């Protein structure tokens, strides 16, 4: 209580982080960012259909979510798409990163710009482009599961792998090129150098890139919304149709599940990156 006794550690002129007003603004901003999400999660346990006032704790809506076949199918669709996207995006991202890191070639700046395009163009443009593309080439409808998810997966890979490439390339920057030259001098083939020297160094980047691709795919709504057919509903698209219909605790429960899945994946990604930074620092 600095009002009553002299503060033993006075606030310095540049100690902005300790000034009351700045602290208040940070607190209010964080409240603004988190209160709606926490409210949403809390109300998924609310024992009231109208979802207006708190009526008591229940996990009914999670049970309902579990027993809701169309929601569970959408969830399974999303996870399947995300897994396939992750595998392909990581491979394509690693190859892109490797090419851009290793080689000099004519038109490289244009190539890099092209690879950044899926990241920078508005989602809606990519969404409608994908919709027109699949309609135009006559992508067959009514295929058996999970092949019917192909078009969405293709679209997800197209926007996820450039992100993965950026993460993996950042990791490659710390690679000592002499190691691969050394391996080549000792008679290793190009493929062996890549597999036994480059990939082991890339690994943390591969994991981080894979997790990024997974969350990007799992979270995407706009591009999926335009690519999805009536029988290929993903979790966010399903939630969207429920949100349009009404605000019910089921939507809250479903949302909470999706938030938790994303949070766990992100936490793992951050942990992997952080651990590698630590290892990287101690090695130098």
């Amino acid at each position, binding site marked *: 209580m600095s009002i009553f006794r002299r503060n033993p550690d006075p606030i310095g*002129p*540049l*100690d*902005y*982080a300790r000034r009351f*007003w*700045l*602290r208040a*603004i*940070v607190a209010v*901003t*964080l409240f603004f*960012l*988190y*209160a*709606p999400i926490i*409210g*949403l999660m809390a*109300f998924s346990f609310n024992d009231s259909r109208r979802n*207006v006032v708190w009526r008591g704790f229940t996990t009914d809506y999670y049970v309902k979510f579990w027993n809701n076949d169309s929601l569970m199918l959408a969830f399974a669709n999303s996870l399947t798409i995300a897994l396939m996207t992750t595998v392909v995006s990581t*491979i*394509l991202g690693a*190859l*892109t990163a*490797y*090419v851009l*890191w290793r*080689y*000099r*070639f004519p038109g490289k700046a244009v190539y890099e710009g*092209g*690879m950044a395009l*899926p990241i*920078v*163009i*508005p*989602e*809606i*443009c990519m*969404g*409608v*482009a*994908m919709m*027109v593309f699949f309609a135009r080439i006559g992508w067959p409808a009514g295929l058996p599961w999970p092949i019917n998810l192909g078009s969405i997966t293709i*679209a997800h890979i*197209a926007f996820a792998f450039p992100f993965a490439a950026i993460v993996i390339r950042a990791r490659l920057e710390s690679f000592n090129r002499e190691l691969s030259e050394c391996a080549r001098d000792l008679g290793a083939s*190009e493929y062996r150098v*890549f597999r036994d020297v480059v990939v082991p160094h890339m690994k943390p980047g591969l994991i981080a890139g894979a997790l990024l691709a997974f969350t990007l795919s799992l979270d995407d*709504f*706009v591009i999926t919304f*335009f690519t999805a057919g009536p029988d290929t509903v993903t979790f*966010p698209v399903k939630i969207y149709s429920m*949100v349009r219909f009404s*605000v019910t605790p089921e*939507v809250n429960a479903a*949302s909470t599940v999706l*938030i938790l899945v*994303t*949070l766990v994946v*992100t936490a793992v990604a951050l942990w992997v990156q952080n651990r590698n930074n630590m290892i990287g620092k101690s090695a130098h």
Partner: protein
Amino acid sequence: MENWKSSARAFWVSMAPPTFWLVAFFIIPLSLIWLYSFSSKTGIVEITLDWNLRQYARALEPVYLGIFWKSIWMAAATTAICVVVAFPVAIAIVFSKPTMRMWLLLLVILPFWTNLLIRTYALIAVLRTNGFINNGLDWLVTHADWLLSFVGLGDNMLIGPYRPMALLYNNTAVIFGLVYVHLPFMVLPLYAALDRLDRSYLEASLDLGAGHFRTFFLIVVPLALPGIASGVIITFIPAMGSYLTPDLLGGTDSYMIANVIASQFKQANNWPFGAALSFLLMYATFFALAIRAVLMRKEGRGDRR
């Protein structure tokens, strides 16, 4: 870096798959839209490519120019609010202790990893007629009235009864939602810019008698200007192309450009016109990115001095 010719086979093998994917499933779909934007709709489903500019001319009609203007205006308002809110937050983060700094940054980024749709849905629960804000204010008014009844001013003589405000389905709700979604976009570049700042300038300014506000506006803002500009553009671009926020939080008059594009492709079923609008939005995005690139280059030159 080695020349690609030194190991041409390995180069082609590793370059081919990502290039194929990018061209087949990104460049070709976009080119298709580009061709559509020069086509005309000749039937319910038939579209003929006849290289006309009618779709672009139609986009310049007052209705659509108005929507473009509205998108720019809403994105600008969002960006301005984000700058005002994010600046103090970024300052507080930069000047905190290293461990605290990491946690604060994480806290700012974390909502970013939550699904956009879910965050927008969460705002519906906050803003709707029976939402947290209206219910909270109702509770306050009811209890204030109850307190006033002790001094004989109860029974809604002085205040109340509370009438819920229409917070949802209007432009304010859309801007509120856009700020909510894009705030992390602004905090991070500002943080990066302020972190690079040489603090001795601030100390000198304060030592020489300038107040905190004067130091902020005459020293911090000019020095951090490239970072601010970068943050402004990074926030502005996605805000202008937002689809979901105006769709869920906006009313009938809060249509932004992305919503018009979507309706041209879905309900209105006029693909050529939707394609032209998409490309206009993309050109606007590229223009903003070009400005950012120029500013970044300027900043790089400034550092070398």
